[in-house]
């Protein structure tokens, strides 16, 4: 029997921005055993959110630092479903614009981080430069770069005038042009392709068995996206999910690249279709009811469940972030991989551990 080596991966590792501990069992260079450990980031936000729902919105927004908008959106979606709160159409469009801008920024950020992990520093700098324009645009629309505090029960906090819409379209046009150039250059890079093609292959059955969500699922050719549910303004946008056959790291990269361009198109469509009108329906009072609601975060399906007892104080807030659903499959997926491919494969799932542990 070959000697086995145990290699700890994390909690601090150069490619991981957040702590998680993988314990890898190796036979020479091949992984034969995988285990992971969580618990470095648990903040008890579910317990903290059992309070006045107006304050809980901001608490839920702080679950994640990258996709904060979609967290507040899903929580507010739950409140609106449970409390039968009407939302004006213009607010729905504005929310969709925020969600899609957030997806562009998150995917660009992830592509940069992944490029950094495979040693392609130039791509990292180029994508993060484009991401900065998108973040600035979000700041111009909502007033904040990261925690937007934009979505409220019954509408949104700020409107977009014609001048801003024109500016947004100009910025997005520029971002699209340079992102296309970067994608074109990167997709012809032999070194990059050799690091990701045919590595970390996940088949459809494995994907469904472990309940994988988001771009990782669509990278296996499964056409499923919560945006097809038609929440907010997606029902008016003729949305079609992007899929890519293969299930390897390359297809997970490609789904995110294609989604970035799709999101730019969706934002443009929103600005085209949006009509003047009110952006907020005033709502006051308690929430009596329970409801489940889900949205498509940049990393996959985000699920919230709330229960209100007629007062302003919520009885229970349940948050299920996409990474917690994506984590279990890595125990099987990493088996048989070469050790050098492990960082890229883990990163190809776009893990976010502060979301996972809440």
């Amino acid at each position, binding site marked *: 029997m070959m000697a086995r080596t145990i290699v700890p991966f994390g909690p601090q590792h150069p490619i991981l921005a957040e702590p998680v501990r993988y314990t890898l069992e190796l036979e020479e260079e091949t992984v034969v055993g995988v285990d992971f450990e969580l*618990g470095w980031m648990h903040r*008890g936000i579910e317990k903290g959110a059992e*309070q006045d729902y107006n304050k809980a919105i901001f608490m839920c927004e702080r679950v994640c630092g990258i996709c904060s908008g979609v967290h507040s959106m899903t929580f507010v979606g739950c409140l609106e479903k449970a409390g039968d709160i009407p939302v004006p159409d213009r607010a729905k469009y504005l929310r969709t614009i925020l969600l899609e801008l957030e997806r562009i920024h998150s995917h660009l950020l992830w592509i940069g981080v992944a490029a950094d992990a495979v040693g392609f520093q130039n791509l990292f700098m180029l994508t993060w430069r484009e991401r900065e324009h998108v973040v600035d645009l979000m700041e111009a629309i909502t007033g904040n770069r990261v925690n937007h505090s934009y979505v409220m029960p019954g509408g949104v906090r700020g409107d977009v005038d014609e001048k801003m819409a024109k500016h947004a379209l100009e910025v997005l046009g520029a971002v699209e042009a340079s992102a296309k150039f970067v994608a074109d250059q990167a997709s012809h890079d032999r070194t990059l392709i050799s690091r990701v093609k045919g590595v970390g292959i996940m088949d459809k059955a494995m994907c469904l068995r472990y309940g994988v969500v988001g771009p990782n699922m669509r990278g296996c050719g499964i056409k499923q996206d919560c945006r097809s*549910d038609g929440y907010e303004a997606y029902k008016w946008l003729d949305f079609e999910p992007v899929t890519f056959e293969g299930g390897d790291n390359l297809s997970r990269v490609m789904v995110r690249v294609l989604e970035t361009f799709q999101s730019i198109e969706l934002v443009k469509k929103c600005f085209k279709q949006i009509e003047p009108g009110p952006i907020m329906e005033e709502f006051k009072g308690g929430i009596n009811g329970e409801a489940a609601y*889900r949205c498509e975060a940049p990393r996959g399906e985000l699920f919230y469940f709330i229960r209100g*007892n007629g007062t302003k104080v919520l009885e229970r807030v*349940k948050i299920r972030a996409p990474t917690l659903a994506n984590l279990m499959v890595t125990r099987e997926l990493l088996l048989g991989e070469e050790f050098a491919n492990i960082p890229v494969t883990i990163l190809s799932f776009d893990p976010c551990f502060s979301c996972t542990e809440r």
Partner: protein
Amino acid sequence: MAAEPSAAPKPKEIATKTAPGEVYDAPKDLEEFNAMAKKAYKNGWRFMCITALDKGENIELIYHFDTQKFVLYHIRYTVDPDVEHVSLVDMFPSAFLFENEVCELMGVKIKGIQGKLFLSKDMDGMHPLRKSFKIEEMLVKLQGPPEPHTIKQATKEDLMGMAGKTEADLKEDDACDFDEEEVAAKGKKDKPKPQKKAEEKEGDA
């Protein structure tokens, strides 16, 4: 933190709001629950997560499934926290993390699940999402009872220690500073002043 709803007269019926097609199934016993979970497995529905609700003595578990047709399916089942519940890991491997979470944070017992995910080893036996959980009790268990706050009069030694001086320094300070006679003379000079002022005031009146 969560403020307790003060003296609610009687809990109102809480309505469950659903989207078109969304179903909440409520099995009566364990057999029915197993049959429903099997149905979800056979239909190829994706397991999403488990929500646990604290209902006082009992705990209600809601199993969420995605039917892959833009519709959610839920099974709600009330369990006694002292009785071991069945695990769905055989059918849905992804349930492992969620069952661990429910065991750890809500204190449900599930067969074959240890309930170790987020919390540290010191917090064994504490379930923070329960309504009966108190942060003060947790702190006592982790750090021991809090020390009582007492106000102590500072002694001469304490003050000298703070100033970084010893007894010898203090004697030196006393020896060199002033002439006693001069101070006494100054005191005499100062004394008549208030008397004068008093006279002036009387004069004005």
